[in-house]
């Protein structure tokens, strides 16, 4: 499983883009934490069935 890209925060008008400042420097660590967090959040949301839940 791969996390291609992570954007942190929200986008405001006039910005057009993004840029993660200092967070970029720690991307691999953050991505893995976020990936785990997303799976857990999905679990809480009830996306997983029972079998997947065990695997998670």
């Amino acid at each position, binding site marked *: 499983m791969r996390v291609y890209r992570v*954007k942190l*925060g929200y986008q*405001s008008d006039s910005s057009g*883009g*993004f840029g*993660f*400042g200092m967070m970029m420097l720690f991307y691999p660590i953050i991505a893995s934490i976020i*990936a785990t967090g997303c*799976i857990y*959040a999905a679990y809480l949301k009830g996306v997983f069935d029972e079998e997947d839940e065990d695997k998670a």
Partner: protein
Amino acid sequence: MRRMKIRPEFFGGIIFDPIHRITAYVDKDFMRRLGYEEFPGLDHLTAPEVVHVEVTTKCNLECRHCYTTPREELSLKQFEELIDLLAEIEVFQIAFGGGEPFCREDFLEIARYAYDCGIVPNVTTNGVAIRTDRLDIFGQINVSLDGADRETYLRVRGCDTFHEALNAIKTLAGSYDVGINVVVTRHNFDKLHEIMKLAEGLGVTEVMLIRLKPVGRCRNVYDDLKLTKEQLSRFDETVRSLLSYEVPLKIDCAFMPFLTPDENVLIGMQGCDCGISSLAVKSDGTVTPCSFLNQKLGFWWEIKRIWHEMKEYRDVNPCPDCSKAPVCRGGCRVFWTNGMDSECLKSISPLSREL
């Protein structure tokens, strides 16, 4: 209402978690783990992540570098119909702007409607007439502050409202997520550390550096305010020196030509995202690639069709001799001359403007 959204895409999917303020692009294995088996046969996203919506062009200030031009306004009902459409295609965020959004009496109703439809509304404001209650619907409130002191702010904007903007940030930051938008000009470029220090003290969520663009009223003063060539050559090192502050720093994608392509920049950043992840709707309902680019693509009710037909914005192949091109994507289209950013320091276009 803030809820997590999971959108299958051609590469896998996007997970938008508004509680933790995270948007993650994941692969198909990841999506399958979440129970998704089918993926769209497109070469682009099924819908924008964020749509920039100009709710009004009216404003209580007359900043000299403003990019807005006067336009008609959609009614509340029309904005609600637009938001219904954006909710239907699973847009994650709406970035409300103007003009000054709070100059429109029913602005909070519009933003509330987006919130109720499960879209995170964000807003950019000058902070001068902002109300301080009932703003908890917003994911983020960005206040424009182009200087850490009155003199710099006034020199950049031409409006003497530094203290009002600062007070708005101080008041709001205690209750909401507040960011600071800084339009970077030759007058505040060498004072960005002061802005970061101020932002750190105010406890804001982020500082966003925005490139000045010769659009709208700014056309008249662009040459007086734009960064000098010498400042542009120092942009990368200056931005990197700002990363030492505890406040997260965001950078307008229009600055991409001035950043060095090392791994820290390459990861997560790219040039112009018109048609890739964002789109804009003007107050009169016309759809444009972004807030600054006044290329009329159609009307708001055609937004689904428009999105899928933005191939020319997605498939750019600029600057064939530049190794950074795949990431930079030719810089900001507002500055494009012959398919490349005319202010890029590497630009070889004979039509490049003198910096």
